[in-house]
């Protein structure tokens, strides 16, 4: 089965339906955080100015680079799921490893960004904007680290001939794509909108 053919299956629920309860619960928490960000931004002229000033302090280059890193990582993981399902576990594992390495690059870039801010005297208590910035991106970073752990688990299992069930690979893949999906809105709200 080719990659294209394997990705064209109809009416298939990736993973088990119960898994999606967890995914949507997590995404709903982030939706609430997105709403809180906008409400706080417009709380007063002072907070509006603080959000604009805070966003100007962010390194948009790193934000953009991390977006491309996470999108590319997601592409590798999506390819891995299709390859695994089409009976090519070895190639799937190579793609998982590529996705995992890019996840580590994301964490590295985020660490550089945090370090730069702290070295410049910017912390969570600097302003409302940075209170949101550190807490929201920190929570997202925790999700990335969990995702890296899950991808690592798949890689470790990859040494076995029948290294994982399809549902496990799809589940880890969907979790990783959720992390990517949430970052797309975080990037727009923090780096582009204010």
């Amino acid at each position, binding site marked *: 089965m080719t*990659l*294209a053919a394997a*990705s*064209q*299956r*109809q*009416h*298939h*629920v*990736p993973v088990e*339906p119960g898994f*999606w309860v967890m995914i*949507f619960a997590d*995404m*709903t928490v982030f*939706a609430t955080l*997105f*709403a809180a960000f*906008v*409400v706080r*931004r*417009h709380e007063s002229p002072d907070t*509006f100015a603080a959000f604009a000033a805070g966003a100007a302090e962010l390194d*948009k280059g790193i934000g*953009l680079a991390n*977006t*491309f890193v996470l*999108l*590319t990582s*997601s*592409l590798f*993981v*999506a*390819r891995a*799921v*299709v390859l695994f399902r089409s009976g090519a576990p070895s190639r799937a594992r190579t793609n998982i490893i590529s996705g995992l390495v890019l996840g580590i690059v994301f964490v590295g870039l985020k660490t550089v960004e945090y370090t730069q801010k702290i070295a410049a005297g910017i912390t969570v208590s600097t302003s409302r904007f940075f209170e949101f910035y550190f807490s929201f991106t920190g929570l997202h970073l925790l999700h990335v680290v969990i995702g890296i752990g899950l991808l690592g688990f798949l890689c470790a299992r990859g040494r076995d001939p029948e290294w994982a069930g399809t549902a496990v690979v*799809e589940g880890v*893949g*969907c979790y990783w*794509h*959720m992390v*990517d*999906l949430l970052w*797309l*809105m975080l*990037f*727009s*709200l923090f*780096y*582009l*909108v204010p």
Partner: protein
Amino acid sequence: MPLGIAFAVLVGITLVSSLVAESSWVAVRAPGTVTEVLVIVLAGVKMHIVAEHFMELKSAPAWLRGLMTGWIAGVLAIVILLNAYGMN
């Protein structure tokens, strides 16, 4: 849409939304609110592409696709409406 094409579209939209947000050409021709709405909508389009093609929801049952589309539309509506309300 093959995965490679979906990825290329995602990269393209990311570049466009960054240019829209940063461009002084856009800033002098469109109110800030319009730029903000455009950036948020483009983020929504990207999230939809990730859900449909990377999460493979394009081949999922209607209830699951509907939930994800509803979540994305809900987030866009909340962010855009709260922003518009705050501006006024």
